């Protein structure tokens, strides 16, 4: 290190600790709120120390008992979220790796066109053209289905773009060596490319899982049947109450349950997560 100034080091730690606190504070409050009985919120301010109702609240929320705002048990919504997130992540990886392969290692008429047709959607979120997309999905009869929840969201080009970037960094010679070794395109893909992209695939999986899990508007729109509700979409339902008072403890418990899986994925697979994130964007 260039400077060995203690003051700067202490300042750096202080800034980081402050950052960690700022980042954690809302979640801490949510956790605290989830452990108090709902009556504690009717008057006054949210307490700052955990209460004793936690287990009961979570149990109740998971089973969906009693709460009419959320007419599906959260356990079911969690399952739906999981299915949706997995379908999006796996589906996107599968179609993207194939198309990136075609774009990088083949020259063919209309390649340019295919390239732009795919990449024009790179940053085009579904929200922007939500009404017609909804209509298309409805016309295809995909409302209230896992396919409807996931397929329209696997189309975006981010993953294709990542694979393209990864493939471009693979030395030309590797494919040449494989060709000399008698491998055709399929064999090269299977024997070399896929195994080589393993960590990229895993990293991308982490990112896409989070992306899929966190979807909000889309599941709200295309599910009219509560047995397909996802947990992130469902929370809004709990917060909107007519002529009554939101059940804060239930809402916050649901929020905790909704953010725990992706947050855990990030923390446990931090290395893959960072890799996936940095790569999908650059």
């Amino acid at each position, binding site marked *: 290190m260039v400077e060995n100034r203690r003051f700067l080091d202490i300042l750096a730690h202080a800034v980081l600790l402050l950052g960690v606190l700022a980042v954690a504070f809302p979640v801490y409050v949510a956790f605290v709120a989830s452990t108090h009985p709902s009556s504690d919120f009717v008057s*006054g301010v949210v307490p700052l120390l955990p209460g004793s109702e936690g287990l009961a609240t979570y149990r109740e929320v998971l089973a969906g008992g009693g709460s009419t*705002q959320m007419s599906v048990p959260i356990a079911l919504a969690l399952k739906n979220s999981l299915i949706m997130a997995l379908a999006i992540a796996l589906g996107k990886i599968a179609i993207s790796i194939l198309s990136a392969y075609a774009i990088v290692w083949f020259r063919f008429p209309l390649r340019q066109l295919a390239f732009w047709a795919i990449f024009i959607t790179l940053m085009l979120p579904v929200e922007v053209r939500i009404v017609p997309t*909804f209509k298309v999905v*409805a016309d295809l009869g995909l409302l209230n289905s896992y396919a409807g929840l996931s397929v329209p969201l696997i189309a975006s080009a981010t993953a294709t773009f990542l694979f393209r970037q990864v493939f471009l960094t693979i030395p030309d010679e590797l494919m040449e060596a494989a060709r000399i070794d008698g491998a055709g395109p399929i064999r090269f893909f299977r024997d070399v490319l896929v195994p080589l992209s393993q960590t990229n695939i895993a990293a991308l999986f982490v990112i896409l899982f989070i992306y899929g899990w966190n979807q909000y508007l889309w599941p709200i729109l295309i599910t009219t049947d509560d047995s397909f509700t996802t947990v992130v979409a469902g929370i809004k339902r709990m917060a909107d*109450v*007519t002529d009554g*008072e939101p059940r804060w403890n239930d809402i916050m418990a649901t929020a905790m349950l909704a953010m725990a899986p992706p947050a855990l994925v990030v923390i446990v697979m931090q290395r893959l997560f960072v890799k996936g994130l940095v790569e999908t964007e650059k």
Partner: protein
Amino acid sequence: QTEIQWWHAMGGELGAKLEEIVAGYNASQSDYKVVPTYKGTYAETMTAAIAAFRAGEQPDVVQVFEVGTGTMMAAQGAVYPVYKLMEDMGADFDPKGFLPAVVGYYTDTEGNMLSMPFNSSTPILYYNKDVFAKAGLDPEKAPATWAELEADAKQIMASGAAKCGFTTGWISWVQLENLSAWHNQPIGTEENGFGGLDAELTVNGPVQVKHWENLARWQKEGIFQYGGPGGGADAAPKFYAQECAIYMNSSASRAGVIANAKDFTVGYGMLPYYDDVEGAPQNSIIGGATLWVLQGKENDHYKAVADFFHYLSSPEVQADWHQFSGYLPITQAAYDLSKEQGYYDANPGAETGLKQITLNAPTANSKGLRFGNYVQIRDVIDEEFQRLLSGEVDAKTALDSVVTRGNALIRDFEAANK
């Protein structure tokens, strides 16, 4: 077994009760099964149903609040008028058994009932008797006029019994639509829109302007606290937390009030009025929602719907729902049954709403409203009210703007439904 979908907007205690009623129905017979789905607020439920209709995934029955009536009525290929449904299905159905104040809102010009009344309400006034007592006011006497209310509120605040005088849900419904009806002021031309699609809003009259001026002033003085747009989700907690002594909202808020007001006694009163306005108090208009049947289903679905509606309008179910929720009894039979059961004696104040809508024979100004795109106009009203409260505009400008923007929406609707 035929399964029918019912999308509704009943959250909280009301939702629980609704599910109980449905469960009761499902248990009462084995041919049909009703599946209730909570779809959020009234506006969300209605728009979700419309979007679903476009996508061919509509529910059989959808609960639409009173101000959606204009839009639903105009959609002739989309809704199955209830009178016709009952007729087609040969159900045993007597439109005359319904309270006129209720069905008037939902009938076409020929007097046919288009949707099935289920939960009709009207706004009333709730107050905290303990706070009143603490402030040295008579806890048995609700303020009857706005002047009294202002005076009471000041005394309450001065005594420290509560931080604020009053709050309210549904600004548009309570403090504009009902305010107009209660003071016999027109909300729009063409008999508040009942006369045709070419109506225009007229809510920028002097009474409305004066009231909104007062609300803005009271808010600044702390007498009034805003509870948010739409239903006013933040209003109820202020009342429950004893922050505000008075709370105006739907009679159907009663269920929630009873459930949440554990530490104090609640009093009930009619909406306040300005005693210098001639003809006030007239009568309040109903709110709440009715059940609309959507087209595009198999016949057996409609059979099921008819059967279910029959069950819903039975005096027992209606009386139970009315007593639990605070919604008006929509049939004479349910009302009579409740009386018979001694419900009103045991629950003083429970009859307030009913008395209020029947206070006088409705005039053209007080029988309700029926404009196209009114759901969107409600958003406009909320926005303009927020502008008023934040000091951006004065009451006159806000209401003028409601009229201009509202009229534009009505024109859009007219154009699209030609």
